[in-house]
C-alpha cells in the first residue's frame, strides 16, 4: 500500500513536471533529470507490487498489473545507449514526445486510481 501511494504521488509529480515543461516553466534538462530519477524506483516498485500480488495469489490484480509492469520494463530497456534515460532532454520536444509522455502518465494515473479503489475494497472487504 505504501509503495502504491508512493507511486501515485510520483505520477502526480510526473504530470506536473511535464506540464511545467510544456508551459516552459522549467528547463528541459532539469525536468528530465528530475523525471529520470524516478524511473527506476517506479519500475522496481511496480514490479515488486506485481510479484507480491502473484505470491499472495491475487490473480486478478496480478494480471491487471502485469502489462503495466511489462511496459515499464520494456520502456527502460529500449532506451538507446546514447540517451540519458527514458526522458532525454534533447529529444523530449521532438516528434510530440512530450505529448506521448503526458498521455502515458494520464493513462497510468487512471490505472492507479482504479487500482486504488480496488485495493481499498479488497482491504476493507477482507
Amino acid at each position, binding site marked *: 500500500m505504501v509503495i502504491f501511494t508512493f507511486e501515485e504521488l510520483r505520477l502526480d509529480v510526473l504530470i506536473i513536471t511535464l506540464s511545467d*515543461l*510544456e508551459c*516552459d516553466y522549467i*528547463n*528541459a*534538462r532539469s525536468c528530465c533529470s528530475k523525471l529520470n530519477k524516478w524511473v527506476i524506483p517506479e519500475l522496481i516498485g511496480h514490479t515488486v507490487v506485481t510479484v507480491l500480488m502473484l505470491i499472495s495469489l491475487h490473480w486478478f490484480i496480478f494480471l491487471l498489473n502485469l502489462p503495466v509492469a511489462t511496459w515499464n520494463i520494456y520502456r527502460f530497456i529500449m532506451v*538507446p*545507449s*546514447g*540517451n*540519458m534515460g527514458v526522458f532525454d*532532454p*534533447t529529444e*523530449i*520536444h*521532438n*516528434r*510530440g514526445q*512530450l505529448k506521448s509522455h503526458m498521455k502515458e502518465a494520464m493513462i497510468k494515473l487512471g490505472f492507479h486510481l482504479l487500482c486504488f479503489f480496488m485495493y481499498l475494497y479488497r482491504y476493507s472487504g477482507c
Partner: protein
Amino acid sequence: MISQFVGSSPTLGSVLTAQSLEPASKSVSPSLCPSLTPHSTESPAQNQMHVPSGYGLHPQNYIAPSGHYPQGPGKMTSLPLDSQCGDYYSGLYIVPTQNVVTPNTANQQPGAQQMYGRGPPAPHIVGSTPGPFQGAASSASHLHTSASQPYSPFVNHYSSPAMYSANSSVASQGFPSTCGHYAMSTVSNAAYPSVSYPSLPAGDPYGQQMFTSQNAPTVRPVRDNSFSGHSTAISHSSPLPPPPSHQYHQQQSLSGCSTLSWSASGLPSTQDNLLRNHSGSLATANSNPTNTVADSLSCPVMQNVQPLKSSPVVSSVLSGASSTRTPPAANRPVEPVASVTQPSELLQQKGMQYGDYVNNQASSAPTPLSSTSDDEEEEEEDEEAGVDSSSTTSSASPVPNSYDALEGGSYPDMLSSSASSPAPDPAPEPDSAPASAPTAPQPSKMAKPFGYGYPTLQPGYQNATAPLNSGVPPSSPVYSGFQQYAQQYPGMNQLSSSLGGLSLQSSPQPESLRPVNLTQERNILPMTPVWAPVPNLNLDLKKLNCSPDSFRCTLTNIPQTQALLNKAKLPLGLLLHPFRDLTQLPVITSNTIVRCRSCRTYINPFVSFIDQRRWKCNLCYRVNDVPEEFMYNPLTRSYGEPHKRPEVQNSTVEFIASSDYMLRPPQPAVYLFVLDVSHNAVEAGYLTILCQSLLENLDKLPGDSRTRIGFMTFDSTIHFYNLQEGLSQPQMLIVSDIDDVFLPTPDSLLVNLYESKELIKDLLNALPNMFTNTRETHSALGPALQAAFKLMSPTGGRVSVFQTQLPSLGAGLLQSREDPNQRSSTKVVQHLGPATDFYKKLALDCSGQQTAVDLFLLSSQYSDLASLACMSKYSAGCIYYYPSFHYTHNPSQAEKLQKDLKRYLTRKIGFEAVMRIRCTKGLSMHTFHGNFFVRSTDLLSLANINPDAGFAVQLSIEENLTDTSLVCFQTALLYTSSKGERRIRVHTLCLPVVSSLADVYAGVDVQAAICLLANMAVDRSISSSLSDARDALVNAVVDSLSAYGSTVSNLQHSALIAPSSLKLFPLYVLALLKQKAFRTGTSTRLDDRVYAMCQIKCQPLVHLMKMIHPNLYRIDRLTDEGAIHVNDRVVPQPPLQKLSAEKLTREGAFLMDCGSVFYIWIGKSCDNNFIEDVLGYPNFASIPQKMTHLPELDTLSSERARSFITWLRDNRPLSPILHVVKDESPAKTEFFQHLIEDRTEAAFSYYEFLLHIQQQICK
C-alpha cells in the same frame, strides 16, 4: 607568499586556499613543465628556472620533460608534498597578483579583465567610476571626405570651428543623433560607431574598435576602468551617471576643445539620459539639441522652442551643399533642413527642455531600453558587402550605411525625397528634423542592378538606396512612404523580371501546376539552377517578404487544415539560415523594441495597423498599442506614420538589444583550442597547419579588445599553457590525473589575445615541434573536454577540439564499433547513434554555460563520430571531418583543412545566443533539426551561432486556419556579437493560406521539401533503422504523387504524373537514396555516413542541395554567352547537365560541383587545346593522377574556367577541394558515384526508380 597575496586581494586568496587543498587531498601532483619543449634548443622558452623571481616558483615542483615523460601516463610525479603544492600554487597565483598590481600597459585593462574572469560580480565592483559608455566620438571619417564644406556654416553656429574641422566624420555622428533610434550598419560602420555615447571613459571592449575605426584623434584617454565602461555599455538602461559636474565640465570643454567635437556636445544629453534612466537614443547623445528637437515631438512644450531653430543661414547652406552634391534633386525643400539645424542658443535652454522631456519620456516609454548605436559589423560587414557586390545597391558604395545617417536626414537626396513625397507633414517635420546632419555625403551611390541574391529585398530598405520615385534618379537614399512605393512598383517589376524565373505564378494556370509526365519527360532537370518559388502574395507583401535564402517553407501555400495537409502527403516545415552573411541589414537602435504584449512577437511588416495608435499582431491577433516613440519615423523625419518605420518595412532587421535582453554582461569572445597531440596526431601533422593558420588569422579572429584565447593539448595527460602576460615564455602545465581533472591555474590559461600576443605566437610557433618524439598513443579526450568545460564555464565561448583517433582513456572512452565487413551491407547499418551519453551530457553542460564545442575530426581509422558528434550537436557547435587526413600523403585534405580553418577562424560568430521561432496561432512546431539544444517548446539554446549553421523545423496545423488568409513565421535570434553587443536578428516570413489541394501542390518548394525530408530521414535512421528511413523516403514520393494523381481528373493510370512544382521530387529523393548518408550496398565507412548525416542536419539549404544533387557543367566550351559580371569579372554560366553518364562525352571536360568537392572530369579524347590552355599540360596522357589546382594561365579559356570555379567557390562555408579526374584514373569511381541518374550495382537508375514508384502507386 600566500599571506601576502591574500592581503592584496581577498577574493583571490580564498580561491587559492581552496585550490591548494585540492591537490593535497588527491594524490595528484600537478607537475609544471616550464619549458615548452623537450628540445631545449628549439624552444623559445627554454628554461623554466628563469621564471621571474616574482613568481616564486619552486623548481622542485617542476619536471622538465626531457625528451619524454618519465613514466607513461601514470601520475607524473611522486612529489605531492603539501608544502610543495602550496608553493606551486602560490607560484602560480602570484602571477595574477603581479598583473593586477602592476599593470603593464598604460591602461589597466588586464586587471579588469582578470576580474571578469573571476566572476560576474567583479566587473561591477570595478566599475566604481562608471561613465556611460562612450562611442569615443569615433566615426568612420572616410565616409565624409566631402563633408567639410557643408560643415563650415554649421561650425559657426557652434562657435567652435575646430570641432568640425577636426574630424569631418563628425557629421555622421550627428545624424544618428537625430534619427536617434535607428542604426543600420550594413556596409561600413561609418555612421554610427560612437555616436550615441558621451565621451566619458570608454568601455575597454569597445575602445579598440573605436580606435581602429576612427581617424580623428578625438578619443581621449578613455581606456582605463575598462570594466566599468563595459558594464555600463552593456546595460544601457541604467547607466551610472557620471558626476554631473564632470559632465558639465566636459560640456564646457566642448567649446574649448577642438577635437572633442560632438561627443562633447553629447554629454549633457547623457546626463539627461541618466535622468530618464535610460540612456537616450543616439540622438540624445550626440547632438542633444537635435535630439531634444526630435523628442519634442512627444512633448508639446518643446515645440515652443522650435521656431528658434530654423535659422535661414543654415538652411541656405544646406541647400547649397546638397545642390553641389546631387544636382538631380533640384526641388528639395529647404525647410526641413532649416528646422533640422539648430542654433547654438538652444544649448542654453537645454536644461529646461530636458526636464520636460524627461517627464514626458517617463510616461511614454514604460520600458526604457537603451539605444546605443555602436558600429559593430565593421569590417565584417564590409567584407560581406564585397562578396556580393552585384546584388546590392547601397552596399557597394561608401554610402552612409546606417539608418542613423539616413535618418539624420541631412542628405540632400533625402531631402529631395521628402520633398517629392507628399506625405511628410510640414508641421511635425521641423520638429523631427535633425540638426547636425547636413553633411552626409552620398558620394557614390549608384543604383546598381539588383542581383538575384536578394530578390525580395525589404522594400523600405531598398528605398533607402534603390530607385525611388519615378522621376528621381535611382540613387536617392530615401526611406520613402507608401506613396512612393506606388510609384516605385514599375521599377520593382522590372527588377523581378530581371530576376528571371522568380515570377512563376503570374499566369492564371500556374506553371507550377502543369502536369508533367515524369516517365516521358526526358530532361527533367532545368538548364538553370532551381529557384525558390515565390509565395503567391500580393505585390506589397511579396516584396516585403523574407529572402528565401534565410527563410523557406516547404509549402509556400499553407494548407488550411491538417486534413488538407495530410491529403497532400507533403512535409510541412521551415528551413532557416538565420545568421547568414548578409550584404544589407537594417540595424535598429531603439529605446523600445516594439513587441506584441501577449506573444512577444517583434513588430514586422505583416502586422496591421488598426489606426494610428494601435497595431494588431499577426501571430496571435492581439491588438497592441503603438508606443509613443514608434510614432516618429526617423527616416522620413515624420511623425504619426508608424507603418513607415524600418521595422515595418523590412522583414529582416536587427535590433540592438538593451540590458533587458541580457542575463549577464555580454561575454567577451573566448576561444579555446583543445588539441590532440598523441602519436597519431603528430603523425598526421595537422598541428603545423593549424598553428600556421592561427598565426595568420590571429588578428582576424572576431572579437574586441577583451578577446581571450587559450590552448590545451592532450594525449594521455592534459597539458595547459600558461600564457599570462609578463611571462617570458609560455609555461606548460601538465595534469596527469585524468580521473578527476582540475585546472592548475584558473586565471592565466585563458588570456587576453592582445596582451599576450607575443606569448601566443611563441606557443604557436613551438607547438608543432613540441611533440615530435612523443610515444604516447592514448588519447584522453573526455577528461580534456571536462577540463575545457571547467575553463570555459565562467565566460562561455567557443571550444575547438581537434581529435585524431578514438578516445581511449578516462571518461568518455569509446570502443571501436565498426565492422568493416558490414560497410557495404544492404541490410542493417548499426551504430548510427552514440555509444555513450557522456558527450551528450557534456554538451548539455557546455550549452548551459554558453560554451559551444566544435569538433575537427582528422582520423585515418574509425573514430566513432556518431558518439563524438554529440558534443557538437547539442552545444550548437559544428563538425568538420577529414577522413584519412595526412599532411603529406593527402595534400588535398590538408589544403581543405587550411581553407576551412581560415573561414572558421575569421567568420562571424555570435555568442550566448537563443533562437525562438514563432508562428501564427493554429500552427505549431514539433520537431527541430540542427545543432542546438531545445530548451523549451520553441526556444533553441545556441551557445554559439555561426553564419554557416542551418536549421529545420517541422510544423503541424493544430487549429484550422480558416479565418485567416495569411500565416507568418518569425525567428528571433538573440546573440552577443563578437564586439560584446547584444543583438536580435529577426526574420519574418509571410505565406498565404489556401483551401484547395491543387493550390497546395502549386506552392511546393521542392528543394525545401527534400531538405526537410533528409533531416527527417536522418532522425528516422538513428531512432529506428536506415532501411526504415529509406522506405520512408520512397514512400514520401509515392504518397505525394499518388495523392496528386487522385486530384487530377483525367488520370491516366499508365503514366506517372506530377505537378510541375514537384517534377524534381523523385529525382531528388533518388539522389538522397544514393547519398552517402542513406545509401546501402555501396561500401561506406560508418564515420563517413555519420558525417554526411551531421551535415544534412546542420547545413543550410543552399549547401545541402549541392550535397544531395550535385551540379554538372560542361566546361571545355565555356562562352561568354549569358555570362554574369561579378566584381568586374566575367563569369560564364554554362547550362546544367543532368547527372548521367550519357551526358559525358569523351571529347569534353566536365565540372561537378558537389558542395564540398569539385570534380573536373577530363574525357579521354578531350581537346588538347583545352588541356593545354586550362590544365597546362600538353596532352591527356601527361595529366598527373592527382591534380588539385588549375594553373593560372594567361589564356581566355583558362580565365573563364577559373573565374567560373572561383565564382562557385564563393560563399561556401566549406571551401571545396578540386579534383581533376582523368577518365582512366581509379579516382573516377568517386566521380561516377555522383551520377545519380545512372544505375549502380546496388541502386536504381532514375528511370527504374520512376517505374518502381509507378508500381507502388498502382498497387
